[in-house]
């Protein structure tokens, strides 16, 4: 690994912003219900392949932006996404040696955790109205993972 290599910070900023847009894009209700957490997917990618480029700050900021966008409790998605990033970063050396398919199992787990945290905070803050669809979203996210990883991988030179 080249230690002096520049971190792909612009790529992180660009892809995270794109994920935020994808996440916030108005969709028909049925499509909305199964939309996975694009921010979560992109954040997991960067946590595995360039853990120092965006650190935890970029995921946290993206989550906060999403909270403001949705007008939800300030900090709920920020916390959940930062936690997802933290777990992926802690395990990044192990995850890097796995195939994309193996990684998608991990992605499923952390996206479920993400949903669980947001769900918990919504419940705590008195917005506990939930659809069963929310538990489908991590599965869709895991299925999309290989494609997202390949797409995001094109934005930077892999070390």
């Amino acid at each position: 690994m080249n230690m002096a290599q520049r971190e792909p910070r612009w790529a992180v900023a660009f892809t995270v912003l794109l994920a935020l847009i994808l996440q916030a894009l108005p969709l028909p209700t049925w499509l909305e219900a199964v939309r996975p957490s694009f921010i979560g997917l992109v954040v997991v990618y960067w946590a595995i392949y360039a853990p120092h480029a965006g650190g935890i700050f970029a995921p946290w900021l993206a989550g906060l932006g999403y909270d403001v966008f949705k007008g939800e409790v300030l900090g709920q998605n920020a916390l959940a996404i930062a936690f997802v990033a933290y777990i992926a970063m802690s395990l990044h050396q192990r995850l890097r040696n796995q195939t994309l398919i193996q990684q998608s199992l991990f992605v499923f787990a952390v996206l479920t955790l993400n949903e669980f945290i947001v769900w918990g905070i919504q419940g705590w803050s008195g917005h506990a109205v939930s659809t069963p669809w929310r538990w489908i979203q991590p599965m869709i996210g895991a299925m999309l993972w290989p494609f997202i990883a390949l797409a995001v991988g094109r934005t930077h030179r892999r070390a």
Partner: protein
Amino acid sequence: MAVFGSGGSRSFGGRGPSFGFRFFCYAIVSVVLMFYDQRGTWLEKMRYGLQATIYPLQLAVNSPSAAWRWMEESFATREALQQEVDTLRNQLRDQQLMTLRQAALESENATLRGLNAALPEVIEKRLVGEVINMETSTLRQRLLVNRGGNSGVYRAQPVITGEGVIGQVYRIGPFSSEVILITDSEHALPVQVLRSGVRTIALGTGRSTSLELPYVPQNYDVKVGDVLVTSGLDQVFPFGLPVARVTKVERDPTQPLSQIMAVPLAKVESEREVLFIWARPGHPAAPASAEALAVEAPAK
């Protein structure tokens, strides 16, 4: 070059605090934010600023559908436009007929009330806003409108359309505001049956085509087809704005309350433009102030 944090020239080993510690810091910040967002008020200012920073993103996100609408409108055929003009002309004629005797009725009303002159319209000022983004899921029914604090929009301001009440301002930014729709499952609206004067509360269901009236006793006079108007008892809406039409009344003899559903008169899901309104203070139909309600209650 550095976008986040410091430059990337440091070695891999010594990159400052560990992930765990950094996550811990962000977690603390998040929890503090959440707590004050729920309990405190000083975050309102911060949110106001944040709304402004996120506004360009909201516009960007909406641009595909805006572009699509613009395309549709520019490529509309002559016949379609002609048809639309005809419809609008018919509507205008109907409306004119309906308001033909308005002035006479108003003066008659004033006489009945013992007033010298007819009262002015309760809506003192209005502002047209364009819908930028719309969320109509079962959890949240919200609109994002391109008018905010800079245009004088305030929190809990009534928002209506030509057909009836659509919602109220929930959150404001400098250039935009978030409107909670009457169909949002967290929204409740005090209403009155226009025909019989029965007062109750209309709750949002999370579906844009229905409102629920769960607090009407069995023997109260509500029928299918009744029009519901705002009762003006909520300190938000002026009295008498049309809200919904009753579509279903079920009276189960084993239950103390009727099951009543209504459909909003405003086309909640397809509305492109909404009106922010300012009620004339002191007008009999203006929303009751907190003091007025407090004074009147013990007297009865």
